[in-house]
């Protein structure tokens, strides 16, 4: 069997034990390739566990810049005996297995068509270190050293990274560099005679892009967007967003004269309290947000209805995970669309934004705070675990210092004093958005009583049908206004005219772009539209109308975006073919291309869910 040969285009997967200190070594491995100018996209595949269960780190190396998950593994770094059999089975024919050969394994534990590279890592560590903790920790950096030789990663690049990582703990620099070279020396002595076919070669394909996870980016967006109040409750995969907000605030939101905080963060007792605090802060004129995941949104729904009806700015960042119930708390999905879009009792509809990567997590977090104030309503940023908790290469963050915050229609004391008519729920501008006052604005004008129950345009309690209708229809008009304010969908034309279209959103984007490229090579051409917000712009309906068949690619079981498209536009469902991936792993280009190619060739008259073998 011929071994795989590939330069700057392969997948390395690390199989580790949770809590063994592998995460930082693996990240250093990925970053060293980036520093050599070659794009990588790593993904953590981790269990709901702190210590002991299996965890994986999958690094796709791709000079062309495809950042979606590829599927398949070319080089497996098998450091976890628990998952050995499944890990070995996952290696592509002709691929490579790197493992700790301290304990001999029977031949039956290996595959003939996979080349094995054994290194007695435990023996080496036991011979070098006395401290059991060091024996464990340095294993990781030793295998990174060995891999760097196998793949041609430059030693000084990793040394620089070690220096950066231990800048504040210089004592740890030397032992880590030493461990790196233990690994490198072993590999040079034992593997150099027969090099492997995978290689990293210096390139210039990274440019000025940054490497960051979406939770960090969204948190930074909340800092730049002027959020001052954050209330949250710990839930995977959103907790690191609130923690990143804390980290950035501690750095950038301190009053230089007094050391006092220009922010307030409360870890609430549950998600009901977090959304309650955000509602109270929004009512009182502060920019406030919460971050959560699907189960948290379920708990918040009564408040979301109140905020919608009482017209209070609220920003909710939903880092989606697999549901229902606790579902797959450490796996990714895009399965909260319907629960967020129509969250709460009665007739409600909410604004949703769908970021594709960390850059858009940053930008949409800023924009959500503006939109919430402008529209006086809850706004959701619908990110997910795949972009939230994995570092992703993306364009650098940008900020225009001339940018100001859009605080929406807030009537001032001077305007009230001048006798401007104030009807809290009155549509005076024809856009469905009323004016509001902050509590405490004026001594005898502008106060009103906020309630979840019905009221007239002047906020007076009323159960009269016409008053209720006025409000509900005005809220619909406001939703129409939202259409024009939210991020618009981004179309991409196929290389040649086609009757086939694809709609996708959020974290599917990188896999989608690659799938389109694969399909074009196969002669299947598709126009694409990346939907970036709900309510859907008219351009979405026009795109569907302009194509005979439109595939809707989603990472959920029930084709939730497709349901919303059918529902909102009254479209014949037959025109929208679902392409659904929801096993908890990020969607791949192979999956999308396979499903669409099969369906395009079969040319079904009615929409069958497009299936693909799990890539």
């Amino acid at each position, binding site marked *: 069997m011929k071994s795989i040969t590939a330069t700057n285009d392969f997948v390395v997967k690390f199989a580790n034990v949770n809590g063994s200190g592998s995460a930082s070594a693996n990240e250093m491995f990925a970053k060293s390739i*980036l520093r050599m100018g070659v794009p990588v996209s790593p993904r953590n595949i981790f269990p709901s566990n702190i210590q002991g269960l299996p965890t994986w780190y999958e690094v796709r190396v791709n000079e062309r810049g495809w950042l979606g998950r590829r599927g398949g593994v070319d080089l497996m770094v098998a450091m976890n005996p628990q998952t050995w059999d499944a890990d070995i089975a996952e290696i592509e024919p002709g691929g490579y297995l790197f493992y700790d050969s301290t304990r001999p394994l029977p031949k039956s534990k290996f595959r003939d068509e996979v080349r094995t590279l054994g290194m007695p890592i435990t023996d080496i560590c036991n011979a070098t270190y006395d401290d059991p903790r060091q024996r464990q920790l340095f294993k990781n950096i030793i295998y990174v050293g060995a891999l760097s030789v196998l793949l041609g990663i430059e030693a000084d690049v990793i040394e620089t990274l070690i220096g950066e990582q231990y800048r504040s703990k210089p004592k740890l620099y030397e032992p880590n560099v030493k461990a790196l070279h233990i690994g490198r020396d072993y590999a040079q002595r034992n593997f150099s005679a027969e090099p492997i076919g995978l290689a990293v070669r210096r390139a210039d394909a990274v440019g*000025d892009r*940054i*490497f*960051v996870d979406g939770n960090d980016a969204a948190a*930074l967006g909340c*800092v*730049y967007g*002027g959020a*001052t*109040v954050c*209330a949250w409750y710990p839930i995977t995969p959103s907790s690191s967003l609130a923690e990143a907000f804390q980290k950035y605030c501690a750095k*950038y939101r301190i009053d230089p004269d*007094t*050391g*006092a*905080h*220009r*922010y*307030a*963060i*409360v870890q609430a*007792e549950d998600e*009901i*309290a977090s959304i*309650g*605090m*955000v*509602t*109270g*802060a929004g*009512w*009182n*004129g*502060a920019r*406030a947000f919460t971050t959560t995941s699907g189960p948290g949104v379920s708990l918040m729904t*009564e*408040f979301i209805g*109140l905020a919608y009806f009482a017209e209070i700015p609220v920003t909710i960042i939903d880092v989606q995970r697999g549901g229902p119930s606790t579902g797959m708390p450490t796996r990714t999905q895009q399965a909260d669309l319907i629960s967020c879009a129509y969250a709460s009792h009665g007739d409600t509809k909410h604004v949703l934004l769908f970021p594709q990567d960390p850059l858009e997590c940053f930008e949409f977090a800023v924009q959500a705070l503006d939109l919430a104030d402008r529209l006086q309503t809850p706004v959701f940023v619908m990110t997910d675990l795949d972009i939230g908790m994995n570092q992703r290469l993306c364009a650098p*963050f940008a*900020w*225009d*210092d001339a940018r*100001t*915050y859009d605080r929406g229609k807030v009537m001032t004391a001077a305007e009230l004093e001048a006798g401007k008519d104030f009807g809290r729920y009155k549509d005076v501008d024809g856009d469905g958005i009323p004016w509001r006052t*902050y*509590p*405490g*604005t004026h*001594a*005898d004008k502008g*106060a*009103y*009583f*906020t*309630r*979840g*129950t019905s009221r007239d345009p002047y906020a*007076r*309690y009323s159960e009269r049908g016409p008053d209720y209708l006025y409000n509900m229809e005005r809220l619909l008009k406001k939703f129409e206004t939202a259409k024009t304010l939210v991020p618009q969908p981004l179309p991409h034309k196929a290389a040649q005219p086609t009757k086939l279209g694809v709609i996708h959103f959020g974290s599917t984007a990188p896999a989608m772009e690659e799938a389109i490229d694969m399909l074009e090579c196969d002669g299947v051409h598709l126009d694409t539209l990346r939907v970036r917000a709900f309510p859907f712009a008219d351009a979405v309906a026009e795109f569907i109308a302009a194509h005979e068949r439109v595939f809707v690619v989603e990472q959920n079981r029930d084709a939730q975006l497709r349901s919303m498209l059918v529902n909102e536009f009254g479209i014949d469902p037959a025109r929208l073919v679902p392409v659904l991936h929801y096993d908890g792993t990020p969607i791949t280009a192979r999956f999308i291309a396979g499903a669409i190619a099969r369906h395009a060739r079969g040319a079904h008259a009615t929409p069958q869910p497009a299936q693909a073998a799990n890539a």
Partner: protein
Amino acid sequence: MTYITKPKLHHPSLACNALGFTRRDYEGKISTLCAGCGHDSISASIIRACWELAIEPHRVAKLSGIGCSSKTPDYFLGQSHGFNTVHGRMPSVLTGAALANRDLIYLGVSGDGDSASIGMGQFVHAIRRGVNMTYIVENNGVYGLTKGQFSATADAGSVSKKGVANSDAPIDLVGLALQLGASYVARGFSGDKQQLVPLIKGAIAHRGAALIDVISPCVAFNNHAGSTKSYEYVREHNDAVNRLDFIAPRTEIVADYAPGETIEIEQHDGSRLRLHKLDAAYDPSDRIAAMNYVHAHQAKGEVVTGLLYVDETAQDLHAHLGTVAAPLNSLDAAALCPGAATLDKINAALR
């Protein structure tokens, strides 16, 4: 009925406070509660307390949950912003509002159903965080708005209007607040304004979480023999530990009481609480003693009223969080946004 506006005819002889306002300026819409409802007396006490403190009405934010009690903020302080939130969740909304603007006075009005049942979690956590607020529970032991079901504060053995006896153990909000670290804990009785008005004034002047549990008989469903929250029962079993005078800053102190009978407590804003001790053994600055006293008298079927505990050195949530002195809702982009140059540095560190 709450849309009815009260006639604004001011009797010329109505007294004015330091701001030139009469008590009428602190009123709200006409109450829609039952005639004789204890809650209306509490509203009147709030009006009286705010007028006496010469608070600018628009500097108060009044928040409530759902229920009869939670309707009342519409019936006082008509120039204040009010927020009738969702059932049991007023504490979180108040917490968020207080974080947004530390300069307003926060008045949370709730009931026993709203706070002790559905809202128990939020009640507990708002108290333990030390939110700077006056939290008034209008406690009648029943769900009035849904017609007379027992609430969680109903005493075991208490009999409903329909003759059903309550077998569940009662939740004592005062005992809980003491345990949770509330820095101002009082119990009043809606029928005793003399005691209640200064208790409210002291709570408003206090910086930190102030709870006043006010026994407030429900005339429709819980004011009969067999109820321990009736006017008659409370009047007979009231054990007032002290009588309170509230002395505003700069007010001349007129007289001194003999030592041993009075205690003076100075609060953050310089106001003073002068306690006339009715029970010589009672010390409102000792949390543990207060808990013991309340429990011991409760066991005897007595309702202890008065200022049960106060910590004049308490700190509030803003102090815990170290927030700036300016209200967070007043900070602009210049104060909040780190700017493009900083973002370039952040980008550089992410490569």
